[in-house]
């Protein structure tokens, strides 16, 4: 957690994750370069690097963009989310290699600045098929650079999770630009339909996953009609909340996670202070609510991270009436101690 900007330490899982990624990257590059060089003897070393890194970067981007909605739709994918940032940074370095070698090969041999050449050597901005597609790739690379450079928790802390998350959502714009870069670039000259089919399939899967996950979240944000008594709203029956787990309800602007643990019920904000992860989808580990995304922890009765960590989330008043949980949706200031509702006494 954020005592030293290193919430996710170098644990065994992370090392395995990174090792697997690095090995797969090298295997992909080796196979791609070997096969291409075997069947196309005329291809130069620079071209091999440009093609292998370009295809690998777009493959990795698709995987990265699938992890988010998959983790929303099925908890089995949550371990992939845990270290997604490293995958993203590695993807940036591979994309940057593609970009640098492309600029060297196609724009560095003239008598004008290579980056300027990228914008002015082809001026068919009015034509779809002749459009200077490199421009899309260049802008996308700038976005990916911003994301990679700010991926550390130092920036997350200083920019605030809201700004940081918004900045990192620019990956969707980058994805759009990269699809244009490929479609108006190599696809215009590629005789084989394989690349087009692969790209179209990947794009369809990405769109479908994000739309399905987005609609599910949108549906969950609709505030339901609920019984109200004084300031409290009826949330759910105690029995529907599994032990050491939560039921997430929406009564106001933001979701509330109602946890059942040790025959008690407590309610805290559903939004983790780290990356706004869904606390209500986590579980209670060692007496603490544990975020399913990166393991940030909070005490359920006061919303504070255990010492020495300093994160705090809002808490809510709860009570149990006739086996039902009632919540006052007005939040207390973050870290405010609120007494849990006792299940054993009431029932």
């Amino acid at each position, binding site marked *: 957690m954020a005592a030293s900007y290193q919430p996710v330490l170098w644990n065994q899982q992370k090392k395995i994750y990174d090792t697997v990624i690095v090995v797969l990257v090298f295997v992909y590059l080796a196979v791609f370069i070997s096969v291409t060089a075997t069947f196309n003897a005329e291809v130069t070393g620079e071209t091999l690097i440009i093609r292998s890194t370009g295809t690998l970067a777009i493959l990795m981007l698709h995987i990265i963009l699938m992890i988010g909605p998959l983790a929303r739709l099925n908890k089995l994918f949550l371990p992939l989310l845990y270290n997604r940032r490293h995958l993203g940074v590695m993807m940036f370095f591979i994309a940057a290699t593609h970009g640098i070698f492309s600029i060297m090969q196609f724009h560095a041999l003239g008598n004008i600045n290579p980056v300027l050449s990228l914008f002015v050597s082809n001026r068919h901005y009015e034509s779809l*098929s002749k459009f200077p597609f490199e421009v899309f790739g260049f802008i996308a690379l700038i976005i990916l650079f911003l994301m990679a450079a700010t991926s550390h928790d130092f920036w997350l802390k200083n920019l605030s999770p809201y700004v940081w998350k918004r900045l990192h959502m620019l990956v969707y714009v980058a994805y759009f630009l990269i699809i244009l870069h490929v479609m108006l670039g190599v696809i215009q000259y590629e005789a084989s339909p394989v690349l087009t089919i692969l790209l179209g399939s990947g794009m369809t899967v990405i769109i479908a996953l994000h739309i399905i996950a987005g609609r599910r979240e949108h549906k969950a*944000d609709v505030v339901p009609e609920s019984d109200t008594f004084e300031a409290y709203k009826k949330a759910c029956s105690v029995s529907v909340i599994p032990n050491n787990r939560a039921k997430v309800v929406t009564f106001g*602007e933001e979701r509330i996670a109602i946890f059942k643990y040790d025959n008690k019920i407590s309610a805290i904000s559903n939004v983790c202070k780290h990356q706004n992860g869904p606390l209500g989808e986590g579980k209670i580990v060692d007496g603490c609510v544990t975020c399913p995304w990166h393991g940030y922890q909070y005490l359920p009765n006061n919303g504070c991270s255990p010492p020495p960590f300093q994160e705090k989330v809002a808490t809510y008043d709860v009570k149990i009436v006739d086996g039902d949980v009632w919540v006052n949706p007005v939040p207390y200031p973050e870290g405010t101690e609120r007494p849990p509702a006792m299940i054993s006494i009431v029932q």
Partner: protein
Amino acid sequence: MIKPLRKYHFVIWHILAVLLPLFFIAAILFRPVTPSGKAIGSNEISARIESNTDSTSLVILKFGKFIRTPSCVVILSSPSTEWVLGTLDRQGIYTFLTPKFEPPATLKLWDAIHHTSIDSVALTQNH
């Protein structure tokens, strides 16, 4: 994610769900038509004088090499004169209409940016 970001995600993906397929299909539909026909042999380079009239000559250049320089200017060089005929972009068959000249002549390929010679090919007469 918090609610405003969930909303942002919801909106942007509904926009992308329209735009991405639209550009994808448009990019396929507007692909340039690749001329079919026998490909030029790899690394093949040859040039011939196709026809000679009283005042002009027609020169055909078959160029099968990869161009690895930023510029590739074609210069016709004969004992009496030199003319710049044009530039090469890529592999292909190029036709140049030139003023009348007398063989023997050579086509020189010149990188005008680095001022270096790329290649040269002797012109043959078409009989």
